[in-house]
């Protein structure tokens, strides 16, 4: 026990005396959260739009007022003729143009239908689609309101609501994503580097020629990173909740326990990497290419898994990150309990167990 504590103490000396490691450990989650939160966002605020109102009556004016009041849109131009539309787009600022036909109100009430044309700049297709959806929903709402006033015969209209993330806030996506990424990075990459550093500096040689048991060496190297990863998880959660209003609807302890489980999974990967590599550089490259990239791209953090080709969907299944993101979203956004996340939890547990058995088998009690 005394040996173990001394080992831990030594490990913390390493961490706290190496400023670069410290910076990576605690600077990165903060920077990433802020980057994803403020810079890399696909939400739309105040998109510039232009109007070609050919009827200019009471109803068209009221419709356009709704657009003006919406936080998503900002009117920058009133066009006089259809010829101006192309030029407006070419200038580049305006993302969407609303064209209202002549005698809009009159047609609507006499013929029971009317058309409005939405022209969107699709050079950025995602923004164009989102804006079109926003505009349609404003128009639909408007239609519903005026038909109610006029007590017209019943019409059937579909009403859809987005569950769990009604405002389509991207923070709900990236907080779980960043958390997964950081925990993976701290646990897997940092431990594999820390263990290979002993090999590279030759200190592993003396540690082996000592009464220390191999298991104790590994646990001693890993425990500090469990603690640091956990602190990181808490930092990310606190920032998510207080800066970005991310909800935690489920049980906080369950959430933390699942974080602990994922940290163990990632650590096992880190130990495995360290047992098959000899230098810090290789360990880092393997963690970066083998873990970070798939975690970013295939876990459903950036791109939805459902829209990937089948082979990639299958590969995504072997990534612990995918299951952890599912767990996080279920607990944080849907307020799910253990019953809702038992399946991904069991998968993570299984992965951890298998990885640990392999790493213990792979640990070399001798050199080479």
């Amino acid at each position, binding site marked *: 026990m*005394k*040996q173990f504590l*001394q*080992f831990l103490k*030594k490990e913390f*000396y*390493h961490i706290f*005396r*190496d400023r670069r490691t410290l910076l990576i450990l605690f600077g990165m989650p903060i920077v990433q959260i802020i980057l994803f939160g403020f810079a890399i966002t696909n939400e739309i605020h105040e998109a510039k739009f232009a109007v070609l109102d050919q009827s200019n009556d009471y109803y068209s004016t009221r419709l356009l007022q709704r657009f003006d009041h919406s936080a998503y849109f900002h009117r920058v131009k009133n066009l006089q003729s259809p010829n101006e539309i192309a030029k407006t787009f070419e200038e580049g600022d305006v993302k969407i143009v609303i064209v209202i036909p002549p005698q809009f109100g009159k047609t609507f009430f006499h013929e029971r239908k009317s058309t409005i044309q939405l022209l969107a700049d699709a050079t950025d297709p995602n923004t164009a689609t989102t804006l079109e959806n926003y505009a349609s929903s404003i128009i639909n709402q408007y239609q519903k309101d005026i038909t109610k006033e006029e007590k017209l015969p019943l019409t059937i209209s579909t009403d859809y609501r987005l569950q769990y993330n009604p405002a389509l806030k991207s923070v709900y996506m990236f907080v779980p994503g960043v958390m997964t990424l950081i925990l993976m990075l701290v646990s897997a990459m940092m431990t594999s580097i820390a263990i290979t550093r002993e090999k590279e*500096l*030759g*200190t592993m*040689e*003396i*540690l*082996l*020629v*000592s*009464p*220390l048991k191999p298991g104790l060496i590994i646990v001693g190297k890993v425990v500090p990173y469990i603690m640091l990863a956990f602190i990181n998880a808490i930092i990310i959660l606190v920032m998510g909740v207080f800066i970005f209003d991310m909800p935690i609807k489920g049980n906080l302890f369950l959430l933390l326990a699942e974080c602990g489980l994922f940290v163990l999974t990632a650590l096992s990967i880190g130990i495995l990497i360290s047992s098959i590599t000899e230098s810090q550089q290789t360990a880092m490259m393997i963690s970066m290419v083998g873990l970070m990239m798939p975690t970013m791209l295939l876990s459903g953090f950036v791109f939805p898994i459902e829209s990937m080709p089948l082979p990639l969907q299958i590969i995504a299944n072997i990534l612990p990150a995918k299951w952890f993101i599912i767990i996080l979203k279920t607990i944080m956004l849907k307020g799910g309990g253990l019953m809702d996340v038992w399946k991904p939890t069991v998968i993570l547990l299984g992965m951890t167990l298998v990885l640990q058995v392999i790493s213990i088998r792979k640990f070399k*009690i*001798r*050199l*080479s």
Partner: protein
Amino acid sequence: MNPIVVQHISKQYKSVEALKDISFEVKAGELFGLIGPDGAGKTTLFRVLTTLLLADTGKAFVNGRDVVKDYKLIRREVGYMPGRFSLYQDLTVEENLKFFATIFNTSIKENYDLIRDIYVQIEPFKKRPAGKLSGGMKQKLALCCALVHKPEVLFLDEPTTGVDPVSRKEFWEMLQRLKSKGIAILVSTPYMDEANLCDQVALMQNGQLLQINTPKGVVDSFAQPMWAIRADNMYQLISTARAFEDTQSCYAFGDSLHITLTNGTAQEEALATYLKEKNPGLTMERIQPGIEDCFMYLMKN
């Protein structure tokens, strides 16, 4: 059984034969030196004996224990100082020492008398990170760390490589003192002049032990007469001396050349006249070969 017993150890790396049928023994309280150039197989031998590598064939015993079966016990009982500086550079002198004392289940205080002579020299720097010590200081600290648990056998792999001559001398004095405490010490070095300080020396080359003897025995076994020659133009001297038909070996040694002849002293006169003709300022004197000359000779053949 002697503290270190090596019996017919061989070890092969892919295409290189690192150790070829090595056998020797080290007695308690004996300082045994392995002398050999880089790549001779010294480090491999150390790793086999410290249980870090498995030999392909042969047996070895440290402290009476088999290096393969009883590796756990051996790891508790030996002190090992690898060839490369292998302490924690970001930990201070004191922290390193304390760390190694604790993982060996002991404390600095308990075995202080063993390391005192060495530790007092580095104590003024005990708050300094090990990475910021000078080369000699680093080696002294590494020795302290290897000794702090009072090992019965000490393995020192090239402890003086890259260390200045004064520190080297001090280091060897420390080894003499440790020896007197009954510790068996196996030490390797590429410096032939250090061979004289060992009780037994083994010359190692290409994975083989060329000779195991006392330093005096090595010199005595060298029967060749030898001359030291000097001239104004040393470069010209070495090429003319090597061109002489009876020259067996001729190499630079300090500020002179050491030369031996195939027929012993028979051609001494002929050599002197031959050299004098071509080299102004020639001096030539018969010398007693040193241990380094013996090694040079052994390695050539």
